[in-house]
């Protein structure tokens, strides 16, 4: 059989190594508990007049406050959504539609996730003009070009904070300043789906008008997320109905999900500095290990310039998916490209934007960590790579 049981150096078997935390994370215990409680005991509809409704509403309030605290924002600025994709769609389409009389130009970057790129394509069909800010080979945003792109008719600028594929970081504070000084009427939206929980974000102070966050990237439940909307931002709802969330996002609230999200947000910023240091240690250790293997190219920004939890590397001569399944046979889970787009054969948007050569694109794999990962897991992964790569490189189409 091809698959063999994974045995460590000491002969003991090791449990799974999950290095795909940028795709999704394992929900924490406290999250599980609150989700269960809101499904078994406090299952009321928060809009109901009776006590059951009040009990359920309390979870929403607590979650809203917990999240607002992490951003030093007002609770009224937090809107719960079904996740990052909805937050991004709403921020882009809702703001564009509400402000089209001011202008019809939107700026975004060349390396956005489809959850931003596709709503932009939709707005283009509606007649909006979308400009894409270029990035260099590390994923660094070209601020000089941005300066020139910031014309009077720009109503909305949307950038990611941390790139989901290579962990490149956008200097959101600089971008915010540039946007607001050049275009006083424009709003700045940040897709912080890979950044929230990894960076301390102060939207009001920095000049971020809208911020998208997804719950399941930070040990929260899937199908949860929020959009921070600074008070005073003019935007339309996307979802109409019973008028929940002040009419901005109708539909009975996902109480278990939101309660879980609130807990996850609070946990993400507990022992924050220690966690981030640990993630950078893992990253550094991983990169060191990778550099000791032949023909490996690591993408993204070096050291603390890049995000703490993402390492993207190309293993020349090996197809990404083949390497992924090989690691899988050792119970090591990683991503090939962006998980949301593995079914498409088209190249990854980020690697295309940073002009990675075809050979690097076809062989790129993403390792993404969470605070529960260990240095031993990194060592084991490097060991497996060293063991498997020679064979994988021997058998190839030619």
């Amino acid at each position, binding site marked *: *059989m*091809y*698959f063999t049981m994974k045995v460590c150096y000491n002969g003991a078997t090791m449990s799974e190594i999950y290095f795909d935390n940028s795709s999704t994370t394992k929900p924490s215990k406290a999250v599980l508990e609150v989700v269960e409680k809101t499904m078994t005991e406090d299952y009321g509809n928060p809009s109901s007049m009776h006590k059951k409704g009040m009990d359920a509403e309390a979870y929403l309030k607590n979650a809203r406050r917990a999240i607002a605290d992490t951003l030093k924002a007002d609770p009224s600025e937090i809107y719960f959504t079904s996740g990052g994709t909805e937050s991004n769609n709403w921020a882009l389409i809702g703001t564009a539609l509400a402000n089209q009389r001011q202008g019809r130009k939107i700026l975004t970057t060349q390396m956005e996730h489809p959850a931003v790129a596709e709503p932009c394509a939709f707005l283009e069909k509606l007649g909006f003009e979308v400009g894409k800010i270029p990035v260099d080979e590390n994923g660094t945003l070209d601020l000089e070009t941005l300066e020139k792109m910031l014309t009077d008719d720009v109503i909305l600028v949307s950038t990611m904070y941390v790139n989901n594929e290579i962990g490149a970081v956008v200097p959101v504070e600089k971008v915010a300043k540039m946007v607001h000084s050049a275009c006083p009427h424009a709003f700045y939206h940040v897709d912080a789906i890979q950044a929230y929980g990894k960076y301390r974000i102060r939207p009001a102070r920095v000049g971020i008008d809208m911020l998208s966050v997804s719950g399941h990237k930070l040990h929260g439940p899937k199908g949860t997320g929020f959009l921070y909307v600074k008070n005073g931002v003019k935007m339309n709802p996307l979802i109409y109905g019973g008028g929940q969330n002040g009419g901005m996002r109708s539909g009975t609230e996902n109480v278990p999900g939101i309660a879980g999200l609130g807990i996850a947000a609070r946990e993400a910023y507990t022992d924050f500095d220690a966690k981030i240091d640990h993630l950078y240690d893992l990253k550094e250790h991983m990169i060191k290990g990778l550099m000791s293997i032949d023909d490996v190219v690591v993408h993204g920004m070096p050291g603390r310039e890049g995000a703490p939890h993402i390492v993207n590397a190309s293993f020349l001569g090996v197809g990404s*998916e*083949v*390497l*992924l*399944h*090989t690691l*899988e*046979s050792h119970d090591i889970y990683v991503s090939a490209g962006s998980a949301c787009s593995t*079914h*498409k*054969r088209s190249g990854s948007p980020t690697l295309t934007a940073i002009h990675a050569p075809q050979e690097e694109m076809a062989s790129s794999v993403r390792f993404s960590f969470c605070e529960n990962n260990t240095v031993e897991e990194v060592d084991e992964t490097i060991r497996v790579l060293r063991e498997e790569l020679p064979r994988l490189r021997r*058998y*190839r*189409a*030619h």
Partner: protein
Amino acid sequence: MYHTYLIKYGEIGIKGNNRHVFEDALVKRIKEALTPVDGEFNITKERGRIYVHCEGDWDPDETVEALQHVFGIVGICPVEVCPADSYESLRDGMLAYVKNEHPGSDETFKVKVRRPNKDFPMKSPDVEAELGHDILENFPAMTVDVHHPQILFDVEIRDVAYIYSKIIPGPGGMPVGTNGRAMLCLSGGIDSPVAGYMIAKRGVTIDAVYFHAPPYTSERARQKVVDLARIVSRYSGPIRLHVVNFTDIQLYIYDQCPHEELTIIMRRYMMRIAEHFAKEDNDLGIITGESIGQVASQTMQSLLCTNAVCTLPVYRPLIGFDKEEIVRISKKIGTFETSILPYEDCCTIFVAKHPVTRPILSVIERSETHLTEKIDQMVEEAISTTETILVQ
């Protein structure tokens, strides 16, 4: 609404003394096809006709769709059933039928009556004339055209009378289970599910074999093949699917044999393993989706080389088809959308830039002698670790 469908079957009507075997098989297949459909169905067989009587809360569209998956059915006719005790009953049934089925029609029509029940007091031509007269009187916009009618009303007077004017086409063919069984080589592409469909259409029960090559092919590619087998099984009935792990054999061939011969040699081993399972499953042949010249491994020379390892006949129902013709069938039977999902299959992963297109059998056989050391053991290993699943 009609509570009965008349099932028309073509070829099986001419099978002489075996006729009841085919009819019984068809009734059985119809029962199986209708099991998941809402409602209750009573299937009766009388003198060269099969009727499906529907009771309870049933959905006509769902029922017809299920019947369209049963090989052996040529046409499905929604019929009005009325008592055959007098002309008046017949007339009332006919007028109700026209009103429901052809409301506001100004088309031309003809009435055709058959009268196996000779106790009915009027002769067929007289019934035709009278019914025509009554339709004209009640639906003045309609006119008679006995040569090229737009609507042909068929009336059959038996113990009761059946009236119908529409024939919904069925898939044709013969009921599955009346023609033995065969082993389908299923790859996950467009062709092989169509090949399986076509052989099943001739009444053959299908078993299948799939070769997967982890980590070069993914779990999703395997799932895709299971999904394809499930779509085909809606026509063919349950499919026994053997999933063979082929990686080691493939890598060994890669190491030992000329690279441009890899695909041919690989396919020869696939055929050998397919034949092993075919014999185990009492199959009478092997089915592939090959078509002459489609790819390097399907030239006449290549087919000769892969064919040479089999003792069972290899059926290739698509052999003379162009790709577009195959695509058309795969869209019709519903496998196309699944077939084009972009997962790597094991035939393409190590494919050479210039594979041999005119392999010579003796040369290939000589190359295979390089495998003698380990190959038998590897084939045995692949067979013993094969996973068999029942897809339905």
